[in-house]
């Protein structure tokens, strides 16, 4: 059993031990033990204190973005030279298809990035481009679940839930794990859920992918806004609740649950007072807003997500996710749609990296960019690409990963990872490592065994660490 889990079940023992303490001291003691989100020590020193996960739902094509393939230019139109692995498309394989985009080397590192991402290319010296990620799901549902929970088959706690379970969070006035505009499909909330971990560790959604930013702004977190009372009136009301709760508690012997709930109301009140300020993205300077593309309707949505992510991170939220959903699934019309998608996210992402760097946050914030898989080097239906989990590119930046670095490789057509293959379990193990957690020690006992994010696998890829 993980020490964190022990802490959760220590309530009974504390109740027994706490009899002789004065009420105040006891209350504090109980609060510390009851609040599952209180900050906790990591297993060892962390390189990243927080994570911003930029999720490109649908599966951006690696060979059209960060993993150029000469051979596809040469053999454009020729049949696939290898046996096609399990595919999602149920039609015959098309021929090899070169990337319609040109690649240019960016920055000092000279890492090639296609013309889909000109702004990100300018920041490429910050990126650690991993070209050898390997997953197991050829359909979106399995691939999303594995990306976020490690398992492509079963519903398990999400990586954000594991993170706050392991580390707690620094700002008790905000949720520790926030997911902005999460997708409703392909597993939906299971992708940020806590599964068998206590519900306190699940991600708190800010709207969902079907909503417009303006609809979300009014009440970013559900139940955050009281529509009938002023803050003063509400404080008045809350004082009465607490007054009644205290009296209720007085005649009952020590019960940490009662105390925890009293504290939860205070926390909720602080959250509702302080959160609107944090969500007030509009108060940023024009220059900042421009940097994130808020001035352009095409980039405003993802720009808002990225800028909000930065604000949340600044305030000590442990794990923030932004989702561009559900756009990148180009079984057809690759050229037009990938162009449009990249246009929507490129500037905001570059803006986020620039801003984090300028504020000194990048060094201990891990930024992750990923889809649920890449896309095939062969065409589908003439002008699209099918799913490819067998070797695809994700990148990470900041938080202890090597900047301006290319890691791993796929074969010469970009179908399978061949060098430094990084399974999703390995990727998760490495991310947890950067957060100061040893993946095989971050466990939770459920149904008679110790579960972990990385199941029974996971190798930390040390070559990408600073």
């Amino acid at each position, binding site marked *: 059993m993980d020490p964190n889990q022990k802490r959760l079940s220590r309530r*009974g023992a504390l109740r027994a031990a706490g*009899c002789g303490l004065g009420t105040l001291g006891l209350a504090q003691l109980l609060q510390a033990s009851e609040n*599952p989100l209180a900050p906790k020590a990591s297993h060892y020193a962390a390189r990243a204190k927080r994570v911003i996960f930029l999720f490109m739902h649908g599966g951006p094509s690696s060979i059209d973005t960060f993993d150029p393939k000469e051979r596809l230019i040469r053999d454009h*139109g020729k049949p696939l030279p290898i046996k096609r692995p399990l595919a999602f498309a*149920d*039609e*015959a394989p098309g021929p090899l*298809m*070169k990337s319609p985009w040109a690649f240019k080397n960016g920055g000092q590192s000279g890492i090639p990035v296609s013309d889909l991402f000109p702004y990100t290319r300018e920041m490429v010296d910050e990126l650690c481009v991993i070209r050898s990620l390997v997953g197991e*799901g*050829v*359909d979106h*549902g*399995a691939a999303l679940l594995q990306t976020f929970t490690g398992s492509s*088959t079963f*519903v398990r706690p999400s990586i954000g839930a594991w993170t706050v379970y392991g580390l707690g969070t620094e700002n*008790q006035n905000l949720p520790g794990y926030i997911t902005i505009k999460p997708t*409703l*499909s*392909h*597993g*939906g*909330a*299971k992708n940020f859920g806590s599964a068998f971990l*206590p*519900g*306190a560790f699940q991600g708190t*959604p800010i709207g969902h*992918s*079907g909503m417009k930013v303006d609809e979300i702004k009014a009440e970013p*977190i*559900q139940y955050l806004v009281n*529509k009938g009372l002023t803050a003063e*009136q509400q404080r*008045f009301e*809350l004082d*009465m*609740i607490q007054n*009644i*709760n205290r009296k209720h*508690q007085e005649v009952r*012997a020590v*019960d940490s*649950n009662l105390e*925890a*709930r009293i504290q*939860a109301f205070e*926390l*909720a009140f602080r*959250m509702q007072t302080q959160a609107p300020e944090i969500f007030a993205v509009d108060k940023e300077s024009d220059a900042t807003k421009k940097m994130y593309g808020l001035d352009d309707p095409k980039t405003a949505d993802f720009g808002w997500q990225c800028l909000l992510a930065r604000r949340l991170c600044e305030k000590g939220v442990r794990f923030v996710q932004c989702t561009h*959903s559900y756009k990148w699934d180009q079984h057809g019309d*690759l*050229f037009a749609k990938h162009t449009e998608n990249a246009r929507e996210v490129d500037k905001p992402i570059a803006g986020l990296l620039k801003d984090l760097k300028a504020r000194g946050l990048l060094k201990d914030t891990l930024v992750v960019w990923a889809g649920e898989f890449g896309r095939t080097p062969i*065409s589908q*239906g003439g002008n699209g690409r099918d799913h490819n989990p067998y070797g695809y590119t994700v990148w990470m930046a900041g938080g202890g990963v090597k900047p301006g670095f290319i890691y791993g490789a796929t074969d010469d057509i970009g179908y399978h990872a061949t060098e430094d293959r990084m399974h999703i379990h390995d990727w998760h193990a490495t991310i947890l490592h950067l957060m100061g957690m040893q993946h095989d020690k971050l466990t939770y*006992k459920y*149904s*008679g*065994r110790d579960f972990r994010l990385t199941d029974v*696998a996971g190798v930390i890829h040390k070559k990408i660490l600073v």
Partner: protein
Amino acid sequence: MSKQVLILLFVLGSMAASGQTAEQAEFFEKNVRPVLAEKCQMCHNAKAKTSGLDMSTGAAFFAGGASGSLINVETPEQSLLLMALSYEGTLKMPPMGKLKDDEIARIREWVKMGAPWPGVDRKAGAAAVSDSGTRKHGSAFSGEEWNFWAFQPVKKTAVPAVKNADWVRSPVDAFILQKLEEKGLRPAAKADKHVLLRRVTYDLHGLPPTEREISDFVADPSPDAFRKVVDRLLASPRYGEKWGRHWLDVARFADSTGNDEDHRYPYAFKYRDYVVDAFNSDLPYNQFVKEQIAGDLLPPEKGEGINRRGVIATGFLALGAKAIAQQDKQKMLYDVWDEQVDVTSKAFLGVTLACARCHDHKFDPLTQKDYYGMIGMFASTKSFKDSETHVSKLLFTPLVSKAEYEVHEKALALVANKGVDIDIVVDREKNLAQAKMIELLPAYMMAARKKLETAEGLDPLIIKRWIQHFNESEVPRAWLDDFHKADDAGALAVAAKFQESSRANLAEWSKKTARYRVVARKQIDEKNMLVEEPKHINEKDGFFRDVFSDSGPFGVKQRMIETAELKALRAEQKTLKDAVPPEPEMACAVTDDKPVVQKVLVRGDYTSLGEEAPKTFPLVIAGKDRLVVREGGGRRELAEWLASGSNPLTPRVMVNRIWLGHFGEGIVRTPDNFGRMGERPTHPELLDYLAAEFVEKGWSVKEVHRTLINSSTYQMASAPGPEHVKLDGENKLFSRFPRRRLLVEEMRDGMLAISGKLDLKMGGSLQSGFGTDGENSNDRLSISPEEQVRRTVYMPLRRANLPALFNLFDFGDATTPNGKRIVTNVAPQALFLMNSKFVSDQADVIAKSVLAEENQKVERLYLRVLNRAATAAEVDSALSYAASFRQRFPKMQEAEAWQSMTRILLASNEFIYVD
């Protein structure tokens, strides 16, 4: 733990190979060690330990890695090492290329010798060797494992004698008191009448008592007043709605598939209603068990024909989470069967049999063969209409006779067949149109090459589409290179060739579609199912594919064709459609499929078949003379065995669940796991006493409730004294009643009940439609229970997006069996109570009705919300709150002040907790 390891070592050690000969050592040094050194140890060494495996020393080699042991002593052919080297399964080693055949052959020979490694005492490594190998049943289990408490027959001991005999009102009390007296503890005092009524009403109904119920009970001085309340509560249909929900947690119930596409289970609600009804009618639990596993195979209670209730009951198996878009369909099926084993073994037996999918159970004496023995039963059961389609099709089962269902099916088939008639005409018309265009193909290509807008005898629109076709630079069309590169004369020649090949291709295509129409008819007549149409994208000739498909320059879309013949056919189809009788009643259920011969999957990999696993029940529970099913699918036999009463776990697990529902914790605190990693019973004799009585009294669940609730144990106060805290901190002795938080259902239903808004209509579905919705559509969300007034148990659950309120208040994930919900106290829950429209609305209605009272406003409020009389101080305090609220905030009306006061009580600890 260490003791158990020792026993394991001993057992396995005794099976290990005997001493090694010099020849064997030489064989190893010559044929095996060099290969390991050269091909394996660069990754699998002490430092790199890739996949947790070190092959550099004998001891490490035999210890195995993350995938288990390399050597299977008993069936050497199934050794992981040989599987990996032979490239037969998914694990292929070494990754850079298969070893030479003769190298593999020698290693195989060495493994068959018993893998002698010079200088290594195999006894030391043996534990690891068979830890994940196939543990041979029976003989390999240690005495300790055979004797593990959970697998022993239920033993009914005499009710123990206690000192304080007056306290004993039910046999339960004697068992509880005995342990308390051993510790020198006295049970907590009896709870006050208000507390008791509130407790038992929430416990049995999930609702608060009404003012009338409170006054009746308080006014009833008779000694059996409480007993009468219990009888009243158990007789009400509200009981089944509360306790059915407990079972639905165990059955991981939801109304959609979850995982990927989240398709609706349109008839899932019938299973839910069945469960509610089963509790209300006190359906004997053994019957309840049997029906959920094999109700479709049991005769109906009355008359002949379909066992309607039984079919619906198998929703238990049918309604799990499914990844229906998984493309590895074989894996998907094994995942579904695995999920069925998981829910069956946890719900009824309290064992985690699904842990034995890839290897023998690590902690319990459950073998892989046991696991596949049950998998075989579910593999012989149909859970899909068609699992092979791109997105697998769910199975819906008619609840009417075959004959009746066929009338409906045939009517649908007529409509579909008329559709084929239409398709055939469309095919013909398309073909004619395209054949005409082919005659002009070179002319079109040349016109487009010259970027002409019009040309003699050509359709300008089609020229435009050809120009566009040539311009699609991102599409690889290597076959057009010659055309573009050549001069005009050369290009014309190329075009002529395309013309020729297109004629042939079109003729071929026409044959293909005709063949398909025949197949389609056959599918309709035999399976009542449409099959995928042939698509141009499957055509090998890229030119033909791109040019003649719907989006190509010569594409002809169906809607562009309109003839009198088609019009007439469509009208006929509409008439047929209108004549289709309404869909007969259906259920989401399972049915028997062809019985399979199931094999053990080595490491859970379906490409690595091991020995046959006959359909049977776990050996350690069912015993050595367990039934092996030789004919049929075995599901009915499984049902009979689970419900037989000779199986000790079924009654134990259920009485423990009922206990947990009343006392917050079970006698076994891990209700879904009675195995070694679960908790031991705090009161084993009591557990067995209850289990035995349960079976003796005809498996009546309501009788168990009566035994538990009419005890002194249940009627204790929840406030512990200092000695209770000291000696029974975790309440493992049940020295007091455990205070508990309301479940999300109780909180919501309770508020609606108090406001009078609760709609007590039972059953049916609030969800309509089939399949799923757009990826980012709001329809993917579960209906918000905050906008409904039916009881919470009737809220439909989209598994992938459960209601936010449920996520907030620890409902669980409705995906795995959950016999005990976790309780967390976090700030967002407080936000719901402080700010939600739902709570405000209920507070508003309650406040207004209280205001309408002439006097005793506060008293009424307390009685309705907290189910007790307010003290004088509380009355004063509430009145002065309302007054000062208005004084301080002059714009607020009296109703608003009282709404605030009501919300305060609804948000208070006293409301949310049951003493």
